[in-house]
Each structure stands twice: as structure tokens, then as C-alpha cells.
């Protein structure tokens, strides 16, 4: 596929924003500034960025617990995101939801459940609404290889297929469900794509460390969906760089294998491409790193300085 420089730069910037956000999340958590648990999306960025490069105004999104940075790509400000993550009033839910619930409906984000999979049907519901109103948009729903084995995923796929709903199921196959390797959890090599056939859906498997490969596969599938032909499944194969949660020392896997996979770095690949094509130079890249980092530091400082909600506000938002 031929790409404009502008498109390649947009993909690179989104990829870099995800990478640096996820790194910042890990670093900030290590400083003890984030309560609860975080699940780093490092290594999986291309799955989200490549897929979402096909998005159009009016589409709906059901995100995943990895790559929280996606919320920022879709419109949530860094200030709002870090405030929610750091449990402050200025977060989207005032710190009542936390890191797994960084979401704003005004950006057509449907929210996310930390149960993994119990929210998978939301995209089908949003797609129903689109169908109901005769709107030519679609819904994206992201889930992992571990979640791929849960019943709600299969029910949601069947429902979307039988109702021809405009939904793209995106399986971020990072090869581990907590500590369990994908081969121990699924009887098929591709826990996302291989299940599509059972519901009469087309599917693709993409190299999830290559943002352009993901984009091209997503483009073919979203063209199918946007043509009114029903749902599809995209599986992106990558590798989870960190443990399931921060603090997981990953004794269940071989460090040498992890290091090999980390060389297949989606951000580095894009940098090489942009440098080779002379679309950007190293100084400009360095400048982007610095600028994005500065933005995040400012957002974190804002969140730190923001107040938390008070006990008097604990019931707010429970009922309309």
C-alpha cells in the first residue's frame, strides 16, 4: 500500500504517544502514586493504533485494560486520564472508577469492564443503535487472547453475526492470559481469528508489532463491515513486554524469548521507516519524545495537585 507522509507521521505520533503513556504509567506506579493495579500495554501499541487508524467520526469504541493510552488517542485529555488513574476529582469518574475506566462518552467510548469480556457485547449494542438510526458507522471492541476463551465473547460474536451488526472484534494476542500461555488456553493457534469461521465472519491475523500490517488488515475488514456485510475479527499477534500487572516478575516465561520479542519493537520499526524515507530526522524524533513527555509531566503534576473527592461525595453518580 502507498501511504502519504502525513498518514505515516500520524501513525507514528499515535504509536509514540501510546508507548510513552504506557511507560509513564509504569514509572508513576513505581513511585507509588497510583493505587490498585496497572496492566501495562507496552508491546501491544501497534494493535490499537493500526486498527484505530481506520476509525471515522461517529464510530464507537470498547477499549481494553491494556493500552489505557488509547483513551487519550480517542480524545480524553491527559489531565483527565491521569486524574482518574491517580484517583482525583478531575478524573472522568472523579476517581471512583480508576485506571480501567478511563473513558468519556462524548468521545463515543463505551467504557470498559475489568471483569474482561462481560463488556464485550457493548459494541454490539452500540452497533444496534447505529443500525436502528440508519447511521453508516461501526463499533470496535478490543479484547485479549485470554478473554478470547470466555463465553460472552462467543455469544457476542454470534449475536453480531446473526444480526449483521457493524462490529470489528479485535483480539490483542499478547500470548499470555496472566501467566498462562495462549497454547495452554486455546485449542487453535489463533484464538481470535480461528473462531470467526464458526460464526461465518471473515478474519485476519496481523503482525501486531507492525502498525502498517495491522492497519492494512484492519482496513480490509472495516471496508467489509462498512459495506454492510456484518462483523469481522482481527487478531494482532504481539508479545506482552511486562508482567500481567506491575510486580509480576514473570517466572513463567523465558527471558531470552521476551528479549527477542522486544526487538520487534513497533515504535522502532516506524522510526526506521520514517528515517529511511527521510520523512523525519533524528532531532525531530527526539523533539517529539521530549514534547510528549513534557505534556505527560504537566498532566501528572495537574493530577497530583488536584483534590480527591470527599466522603460526602461517595454516593454521587450512583443513581441519576
Amino acid at each position, binding site marked *: 500500500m502507498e501511504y502519504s507522509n502525513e498518514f505515516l507521521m500520524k501513525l507514528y505520533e499515535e504509536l509514540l504517544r501510546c508507548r510513552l503513556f504506557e511507560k509513564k504509567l509504569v514509572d508513576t506506579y513505581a513511585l507509588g502514586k497510583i493505587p490498585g493495579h496497572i496492566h501495562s500495554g507496552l508491546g501491544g501499541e501497534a494493535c490499537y493504533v493500526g486498527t484505530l487508524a481506520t476509525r471515522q467520526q461517529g464510530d*464507537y469504541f*470498547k477499549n481494553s485494560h491494556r493500552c489505557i493510552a488509547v483513551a487519550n488517542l480517542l480524545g480524553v485529555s491527559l489531565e483527565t486520564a491521569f486524574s482518574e488513574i491517580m484517583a482525583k476529582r478531575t478524573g*472522568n*469518574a*472523579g476517581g*471512583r*472508577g*480508576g485506571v480501567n*475506566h478511563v*473513558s*468519556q*462518552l*462524548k468521545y463515543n467510548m*463505551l*467504557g470498559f*469492564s475489568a*471483569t474482561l469480556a*462481560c*463488556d*464485550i*457485547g*457493548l*459494541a*454490539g*449494542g*452500540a*452497533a*444496534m*443503535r*447505529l443500525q*436502528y*438510526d440508519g447511521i453508516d458507522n461501526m*463499533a470496535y471492541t478490543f479484547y485479549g487472547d485470554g478473554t478470547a476463551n470466555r*463465553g*460472552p465473547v462467543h*455469544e*457476542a460474536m*454470534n*449475536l453480531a453475526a*446473526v*444480526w449483521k451488526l457493524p462490529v470489528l472484534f479485535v483480539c490483542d494476542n499478547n500470548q499470555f492470559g496472566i501467566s498462562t500461555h495462549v497454547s495452554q488456553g486455546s485449542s487453535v493457534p489463533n484464538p481470535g481469528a480461528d473462531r470467526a469461521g464458526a460464526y461465518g465472519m471473515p478474519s485476519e491475523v496481523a503482525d501486531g508489532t507492525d502498525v502498517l500490517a495491522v492497519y492494512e488488515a484492519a482496513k480490509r475488514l472495516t471496508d467489509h463491515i462498512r459495506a454492510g456485510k456484518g462483523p469481522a475479527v482481527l487478531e494482532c499477534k504481539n508479545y506482552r513486554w511486562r508482567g500481567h500487572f506491575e510486580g509480576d516478575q514473570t517466572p513463567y516465561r523465558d527471558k531470552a524469548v521476551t528479549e527477542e520479542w522486544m526487538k520487534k519493537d513497533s515504535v522502532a520499526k516506524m522510526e526506521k521507516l520514517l528515517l529511511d524515507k527521510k520523512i523525519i530526522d533524528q532531532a525531530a524524533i527526539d523533539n517529539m519524545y521530549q514534547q510528549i513527555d513534557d505534556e505527560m509531566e504537566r498532566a501528572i503534576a495537574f493530577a497530583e495537585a488536584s483534590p480527591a473527592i470527599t466522603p460526602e461525595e461517595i454516593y*454521587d*453518580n*450512583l*443513581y*441519576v
Partner: protein
Amino acid sequence: MLVTFAQAVGDAMREEMRRDDRILIFGEDIAEFGNIFGITRGMLEEFGSKRVRNTPISEMAFIGAAMGAAETGLRPCVELMYSDFSLVAFAEIYHCIAKWRYMHGPEYKLPLVIRSAMGSSFGATGEHSNCLESLYMHSPGLLVASPSTAYDAKGLLKEAIRNDNPVMFFEHKQLYKTKGEVPEEEYTIPFGVADIKREGSDVTIIAIGLMVGRALEAAEALAKEGISVEVLDPRTLVPFDKEAVRKSLSKTHRAMVVEESNKTSGVGAELAAMMQEEMYDELDGPVVRVAALDVPLPYNIELEKYAIPDAEQIAAAIRKMF
């Protein structure tokens, strides 16, 4: 006009769907078949397949879809054929639907109703006879309604459909055929307002669903013995009308809770604890619970009857309070 409870439920949906084209219904066997109790019969013909849809037997998927449709601007009134099946989608309801707005922010409204047929019905056995109100009372974020008459069912369902909060709406199978007076003109019943089904001065029975009728039967029998029973039907369990209970107790000073669910951790457990914590000064004795036995409801109809409170058991328990 005299209509059945089932007709009242159907009419509530029809009237609301005529009023607001954002409302749609879906669930198992509700379209051509018109629901297994005939409640949605004719709705496919009137509203079309866009607004009246059969789903596959996939409760997790269609409850999830209802949620996604609700947050993006539709007002789904979905049917889980039996309340027992709500447990198949329990995490979707208990975690997601109940907590969504709290966890994501105030713009995430879920104007969504989940209707189900509930309760015992002559040998339906342990997996098709449950009364699960107490489970959903335990999940902050949900509203819970359990009407006992055609009038209440219609007014509460219309209110549920108009409400911007998610509602669990329970309809007792044995009540579907019961008839009641329902006005021709438009009305709704607000949530959180109890109804005194019979006034009395010696003891207050708080009864829900099918048990309201049995409590009234017991009250009738006891009246002949000189015991005056007040029967209070909360109609909605969340929100719960505490003030109505307080007012009744200030007159009777004795309380009983009658429910069809089994006793342990049931609705009565919660209400008895609440009254003893908050209304102790009004009570002349302990709150008495009359509930089903702690067994899966047996298939054998004689044993099924034995397991569930009837008017005689309720009356006997009241006599012991004096």
C-alpha cells in the same frame, strides 16, 4: 377496566413504545411467538422487527447489547424469559450495568429495563422458580421492582421505562392471570412509594409479589379473630419506602415480613435488620420473618406448596406474636 396482570404489562410497553420511538424490546421468543406467556403478542405486527426482536439464547450477549444500546441513545426494555436466567448474565448485570455510571462518570446513563417472569409455578422446579430480588438489592446502582397487582405492574413498568436508571423488573408467573382494575387514562407510579393494601392497627405485614395476596387472605381470617392486620406492599425494593414502614409501625408496633424466596439472606433478612436498626423504638417485639424453606424448590407439587408460605402459615405466625 378489569385487565389481567399480563395484559397490564403488555399495555405498559405498548403505550410507552407508541409515545417514544427510542424504546425497543428484545429477548427470547418475544417476536412471532409473543413471549411464552403471550405478553408481547401483537407487538411485532404493531411495531415491526426493528423494535421487537427475537434474540438467540445468549443472555450475556443481549444483556450486553442492551447496555451498549442504552448508553448510546436507545431505551431498551429487554426480557429475560425467567428471572432464573438473569444469573447466566449475572456479572453483566451486577458488575457492569449496576456500576457503569459510577465507574465511568455521570454521562454514562443506562435507561434500561430488564423484565423477567419470576417465582414458583406448580412444579417448575429449582431452576425456574426463583425469587431473586434480594440478589439485586445487594448491587448498588440498580432499581428493583416487584409488583403484586395489574394496576401496580402497569404504572411501575411505565415509570421504569421512563427512568434513566437501570431497572430489574420482576413479574410473578402466578400473578399473570390475576385480574385487577386499571384506569383507561394514563398514569405512572413513582418508585419508592409503598402502597397500603389493607389498613390495620395491630400488626404490619410487609409482603411482596405473590405474597401480598396471601397476606391479605391471612388478614381477612385474622380480622374475624379480632386481630387487625395492615398489609404494606413496598412495590419497589430499591428504592425502598422506609417512611411508609415507619408510619405503619408507629400505629401497629409489630412487624412481619413475608416473602416467597427462601429465608436465609432474603429480603426479610434485610428489612428485619433495617427495622431493628432504624425503627427499634417503634417495635414492641422482634420482627418476624415468614419465608420459603431453605431448599431448592421441589418438583413434587405438594412439597412445593409445603416449602412456600401460605395464608394459614402467615396467620399462624401472627397469632404467635400476641
